[in-house]
């Protein structure tokens, strides 16, 4: 100890005067150091601003692109339900035609001739064809529906709002100068459209077809209903498979599993599975579910199973964390009252862990809802017009629909794609916020 004291004193004598020179030196360096500090903070702020900027650009970009898709233009046409045009026999107005005759009537000619009547000056064949192109081809189906529902219309003349073709729709949505050609609308068509517009025969309406129709080759008719149904069916499968299996697995691993190499392996396995690229799950679905088990391609059943396997690790990891967070005193108290392991787990631990488990499940489902790549592998990428009603029907889902539309050459599909993205994002945001809400509520209860 004395030795130490000596060296200490020696040292004290050694730099006795260093104190004030130190302060001065530090003072001198401060300016540089503080500006370095400021620069570092600035970098941090820039990084965060970059994130905000990207979110803003992304949403603004998609939002502005999507906006036009929510509106459509309709054209008022005076349709004459002329028996001759419809080629309904007999042309005698007194006799009511039977259903068969109505079904086979020529509605397309009726639309055409009614339209020509509105523009009597048009005679050239090419012009007539251009005129017809102003209307969506769905017009004939609309008047067919009208007539079959009400055969009394025959022989009458009715003003009807008919859906405009997507080129016309885009024309009205762009900054067009009235009467000038633009895009795929030529000069003559532009002139007719101006006439129609001036006479009040063009109207912009909210696009309900987008939500009630399925996919179509015609952009003005394409909607998301089929994809939405497919998504719902797929999500039902995902929920039905991944929730019970995920929670059971988590309960086993946390509450019952002995701590040995086996459970260690399962745990490592789950962690790794969580980071396996989603497309690889698609390969699994293709090779095993479709080629070995012979499940139908493109079906929401297969899509659901693949996505469930992909979602499982997320749900298991979240559930385990939540189960682990249940205080041990709860278990001890219940065991002390004579409850069995299983009763403690199911009646005490599980209910307390439920909010956390649900949060994890919602996050997992949101992940599955936005997933595309594995579904491409199992053929859910087909063009499907029918709304799927069964788990084995060929179906597509929202993200795949977005992918398909994004690939389409027609410019009108660009807006459709963006609109579908907005719908998908709306779902995801709702799910994410409910998960955050649940979590915050859970955290409050946990305190």
């Amino acid at each position, binding site marked *: 100890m004395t030795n*130490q*004291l000596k*060296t*200490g004193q*020696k*040292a004290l004598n050694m730099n006795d005067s260093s*104190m004030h020179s130190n302060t001065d030196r*530090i003072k001198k*360096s401060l300016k540089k150091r503080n500006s370095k500090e400021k620069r570092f903070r600035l970098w941090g702020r820039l990084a965060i601003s970059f994130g905000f900027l990207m979110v803003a650009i992304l949403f603004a970009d998609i939002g502005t692109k999507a906006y036009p898709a929510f509106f459509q233009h309709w054209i008022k046409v005076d349709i004459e339900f002329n028996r001759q045009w419809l080629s309904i026999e007999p042309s005698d107005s007194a006799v009511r035609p039977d259903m068969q005759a109505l079904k086979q009537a020529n509605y397309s000619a009726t639309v055409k001739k009614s339209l020509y009547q509105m523009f009597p000056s048009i005679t050239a064949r090419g012009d007539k064809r251009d005129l017809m192109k102003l209307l969506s081809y769905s017009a004939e189906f609309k008047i067919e529906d009208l007539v079959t529902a009400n055969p009394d219309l025959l022989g009458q003349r009715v003003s009807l709002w008919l859906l405009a073709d997507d080129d016309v729709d885009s024309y009205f949505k762009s900054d067009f100068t009235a009467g000038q050609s633009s895009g795929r609308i030529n000069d003559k068509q532009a002139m007719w459209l101006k006439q129609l517009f001036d006479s009040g025969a063009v109207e912009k309406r909210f696009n309900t077809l987008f939500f009630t129709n399925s996919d179509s080759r015609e952009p003005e008719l394409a909607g998301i209903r089929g994809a939405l149904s497919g998504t719902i069916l797929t999500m039902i499968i995902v929920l039905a498979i991944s929730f019970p299996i995920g929670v059971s697995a988590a309960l086993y691993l946390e509450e019952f599993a002995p701590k040995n190499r086996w459970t260690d392996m399962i745990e490592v396995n789950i962690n790794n599975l969580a980071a396996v690229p989603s497309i690889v799950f698609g390969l699994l679905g293709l090779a095993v579910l479709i080629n070995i088990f012979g499940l139908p391609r493109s079906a929401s059943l297969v899509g659901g199973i693949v996505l469930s396997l992909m979602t499982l690790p997320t749900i298991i990891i979240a559930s385990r964390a939540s189960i682990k967070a249940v205080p041990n005193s709860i278990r001890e108290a219940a065991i002390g009252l004579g409850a069995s392991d299983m009763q403690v787990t199911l009646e005490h631990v599980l209910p307390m862990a439920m909010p956390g488990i649900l949060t994890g499940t919602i996050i997992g489902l949101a992940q599955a809802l936005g997933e595309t790549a594995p579904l491409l592998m199992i053929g859910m990428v087909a063009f499907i017009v029918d709304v799927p009603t069964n788990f084995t029907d060929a179906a597509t889902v929202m993200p795949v629909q977005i992918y398909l539309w994004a690939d389409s050459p027609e410019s009108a599909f660009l807006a459709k794609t963006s609109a579908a993205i907005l719908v998908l994002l709306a779902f995801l945001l709702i799910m994410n916020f409910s998960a955050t809400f649940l979590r915050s509520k859970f955290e409050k209860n946990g305190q």
Partner: protein
Amino acid sequence: MTIKTKSLTDGMEIEHTVGNVFADDPKMSMRNVDVFYNDKQAIKNVSIDLARNQVTALIGPSGCGKSTFLRCLNRMNDTIDICKIKGSLLLDGEDIYHKKMDPVLLRARVGMVFQKPNPFPKSIYDNVAYGPRIHGLAASKDDLDEIVVTSLQKAGLYKEVKDRLSSSGTGLSGGQQQRLCIARTIAVSPEIILMDEPASALDPIATAIIEELIDELKEKYTIAIVTHSMQQAARISQTTAYFHMGSLIEVGSTDHIFTNPSHQLTENYITGRFG
């Protein structure tokens, strides 16, 4: 000194500190310091001086605010968003909470040693050289070597580690780690060293070494130490301040406080009836 005494319960209000808070040659002087965590007041109207080249011990039961008060002296509480400080705290007559006072400079002048040894996960050499390097105190490699060696010597650690300066600081024993932290603090040549229960995580032998070290260090530095151990306070300090529920109850020479406390609360604490 007037004392307003209602009862000896915890709800008691203290208007004034008993004893002489003024030091003859104060290095730091604090006046009417209040500290708030949000709305909760942690320190109530505390005034005290730290005498130059002396050891001042801050004692009191857990949660009495002595650590909080200590952390105000080098603005470590700045890192806590909800912490607000009022009153005047002067270092050599300079207000340390003044706008122009840079906390970086202040902390270089007022060093701190923590309860749990916290060496950086670097070599022993780099631990001690950390301060001089960031402050640019060494002009050359030789300068730096000298600072490291003298600091380790002052902390009484040099002999033990001179052959393994490049091995990790976290590999040392608890007592050695704490002396390493002291060496690290000394290396910047501070004027004051604040110690927050520096020996509470150590065994008795390591504690004795640290206490001896503190006794040597006061020759050069002004020291304020928070301690739980009254024996420690009695052994190493010249002045003792007793805190209770955020208030400073009594200040006086250590001999006086431990032999003849003036305030009932101090006496209760010293005699072990409380805390």
